């Protein structure tokens, strides 16, 4: 996996790393067993007549229970990480739907906007992204083609995602989970405590002709630098102050 740049991305990577160990061990054991069997029991003579075993209930119970335990472990680790991600404010649940489906925890988290330092409205279009910064100072829309989204480091940022035409997906692997960007629906994703750096993002839901070229790169800069950039951008775009 690409090196994580937020605690959330780190959580995902940690989970992956542990699950991978389970997976590799399972893989090696099963393949080794298969290889040993295939080599050791080659036919030596056409007259071979092996013992006719029809099964073994104890052994079969064994290879039901052991994988079940492994799978249970992987399952509990997964939902544990999912819970932690939720605790961090990251959510793969859409705002509107959360209410409809009555998931209280997720709804609460999203309502709890006090922690959020910056909200950005992200609109996916065929085939570019559009960003509107909503701070209490000014509203500024930055229509983007290949220009990165600029974010301050070390803050809690919420992206409100929606699409103008077809489904797209927000994916900056180093910054946390991926989420579909659906038309007619608003979903939210949190970016918390990101480290400064340039991160490549790419639309990850097939959205037609130019899907391959629809980047959503992100540039995370220290807070002071962000403030300077933001003031400059507001001035340049002639955005209106909303206070």
């Amino acid at each position: 996996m690409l090196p994580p740049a937020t605690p959330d991305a780190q959580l995902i990577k940690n989970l992956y790393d542990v699950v991978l160990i389970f997976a590799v061990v399972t893989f090696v054991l099963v393949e080794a067993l298969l290889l040993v069997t295939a080599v050791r029991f080659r036919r030596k003579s056409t007259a071979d007549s092996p013992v006719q075993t029809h099964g073994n209930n104890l052994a079969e119970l064994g290879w039901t229970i052991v994988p079940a335990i492994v799978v249970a472990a992987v399952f509990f680790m997964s939902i544990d990480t999912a819970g932690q991600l939720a605790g961090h404010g990251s959510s793969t649940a859409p705002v509107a739907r959360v209410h409809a489906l009555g998931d209280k925890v997720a709804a609460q988290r999203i309502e709890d906007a006090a922690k959020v330092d910056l909200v950005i409205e992200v609109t996916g279009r065929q085939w570019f992204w559009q960003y509107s910064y909503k701070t209490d100072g000014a509203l500024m829309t930055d229509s983007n083609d290949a220009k990165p989204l600029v974010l301050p480091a070390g803050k809690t940022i919420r992206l409100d995602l929606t699409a103008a035409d077809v489904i797209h997906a927000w994916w900056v692997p180093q910054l946390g989970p991926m989420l579909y960007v659906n038309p007619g629906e608003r979903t939210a994703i949190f970016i918390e405590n990101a480290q400064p750096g340039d991160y490549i993002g790419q639309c990850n839901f097939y959205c037609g002709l130019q899907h391959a070229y629809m980047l959503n790169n992100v540039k995370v800069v220290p807070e002071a630098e962000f403030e300077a950039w933001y003031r400059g951008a507001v001035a340049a775009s002639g955005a209106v102050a909303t206070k």
Partner: protein
Amino acid sequence: MAAIPLSPQAAQRQRIGRFGVQLFIASETMFFAALFFAWYYLGVTADAAWPPAGVQRPSFAPAAVNTVLTLMSAVTMWIAARSIRRDNQRGLVFWMSASAALALLFMAVQTIEFRELALIAQDTSYGSLFLFLLFFHAARVFVGVALMVIVLIRSILGQFSAQRHLLVDAAEMYWNFIVIVWLAVFTVLYLF
């Protein structure tokens, strides 16, 4: 009634045929289950009301009439099938004609209803699903009537007996399925 027993092969054919029809009905059931799932899913997740504001539910009366017709046809169908099991050819002809008549009446009422519905189908998901459920049910009624007509012709020709009446069974099973689908449609679309 001197019943000539069927050869094992012929009895087997009847079993095979009946089971085939039952399985076909199972798959038909899933088709309607999918449409009902869509109805339920859109109803639950709709941000607005369901039916959406401004959409008039189609009038209740024709559907209620059709429910009565459907239930009556279920009864006549049952009697028709029972007649031939008792080797009563005339009974089969009479009650099968009655069933077909009721089914045709049903379709006539349905046609009136469609006129109203065609308008709302293109405006909302609600209307589209409403129309689709009725339309695909009506398409099955059509198939059911066709089956009844074939059974009628063949029963007039005297091709059925107490032992040989696979097609009658098929028509009966399929019709029962149609009746049940209608009851579900009526309950879901009109009552709640």
